[in-house]
């Protein structure tokens, strides 16, 4: 499959949040303040890419030759946890203001199922290293796109009158459902 098709399909058509339901906890958890959402999306893109960069070779050059590919979940979660720690150190060193802005969300990426989900999906179906990286990039971008637009909508929802029972989480879910409906319409692009 050509790379552009993979990028578009992972970003828009099979969007990681709306169609595959990965990373929903952070999606609903932090989508109230635009500033932290932008920082979080940036961090998620970086970590998803780095995780794909490392887990793919680990799977094909360590786990498969040793015939222990059944421990992929354990191996990947360890890689991701240490990766998040490492990213935290680097960001702290390079840009202290960004580190401050991300705050608690940085360590939370370790338990973001989007990261583990992409890493596992990447090795579940046979594809080349470049394809896997493109898929990871598209997924990360898709996450950023959705969470930023969703936050913008949700900030407006705060300001208008919503039926009492729908306030808060229910209306957020319904909004996400309508967004997912809209994104289903993109399925015809490829």
């Amino acid at each position: 499959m050509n790379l552009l098709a993979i990028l578009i399909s992972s970003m828009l058509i099979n969007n990681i949040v709306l169609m595959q339901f990965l990373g929903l906890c952070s999606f609903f958890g932090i989508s109230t303040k635009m500033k932290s959402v932008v920082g979080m999306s940036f961090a998620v893109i970086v970590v998803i890419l780095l995780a794909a960069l490392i887990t793919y070779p680990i799977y094909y050059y360590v786990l498969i030759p040793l015939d222990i590919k059944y421990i992929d979940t354990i191996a990947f979660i360890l890689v991701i946890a240490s990766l998040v720690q490492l990213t935290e150190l680097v960001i702290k060193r390079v840009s202290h203001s960004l580190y401050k802005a991300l705050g608690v969300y940085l360590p939370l990426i370790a338990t973001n199922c989007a990261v583990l989900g992409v890493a596992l999906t990447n090795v579940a179906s046979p594809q080349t290293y470049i394809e896997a990286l493109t898929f990871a990039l598209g997924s990360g971008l898709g996450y950023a796109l959705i969470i930023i637009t969703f936050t913008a909508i949700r900030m407006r929802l705060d300001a208008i009158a919503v039926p009492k029972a729908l306030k808060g989480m229910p209306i957020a879910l319904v909004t996400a459902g309508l967004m997912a409906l809209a994104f289903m319409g993109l399925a015809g692009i490829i």
Partner: protein
Amino acid sequence: MTEVKKVPAKKVAVEDKEPSPWVTFTKGILKENGLFVMVLGMCPALAVTATFEGAFGMGILVMIVLTLTNISVSAIRKLVPNTVRIPSYVIIIATEVTILKMLVDAFAPALAQELGVFIALITVNCVVFGRAEAFASKNKVVLAALDGFGVALGFGLSLSIIGFVRELFGTGMIVLGKTLPLGFEYTIFQNLGLQKYAFSVLAQPPGAFLVIGFLLAGITAFRQRKGAKK
């Protein structure tokens, strides 16, 4: 995932130091229902509830993992230094999930097919994490086991309800025995003629958000009315 965890931690602290086993068991089913009240563990709730059977199967898997995790975390709570407790939970849960995944692959291949990557993703399920951190790490093994089983029962029940609604209104019937290895295949509500009016989008991804959103709204409305009466 972990940001919502603060809530149960506070609740446990406010409650009695040694809650009775029965209360520990039942509070997770309704009062502190992981999905509908705490809104934790959204990913599997949306992803695997397209069919009743998939949702039910996921509920059983989460039940096994959550009970085992609570037991092991509680058993080692005095051995593990506080600073490395989260990594140790991760290893415990990931190991259990790996074993479980191999068992499902072997004995219920259709279920493994249906749930896909979400079996492995129980590893990062926030309900499991939340209970390990908020309850099991502070309580005795028996209580932790009861708490884990209760919360998981509530979670599985919620999943099954969502799956039931989505499959019934999305396809017009409920198929049994197709994904779970029951040994028979049976379709209920087939003769109601609902298929003609099936709203197929409910069985597709957007329907997951809509169904859970409206179920949550219904529960909120019910609780508000109950609160108003008192």
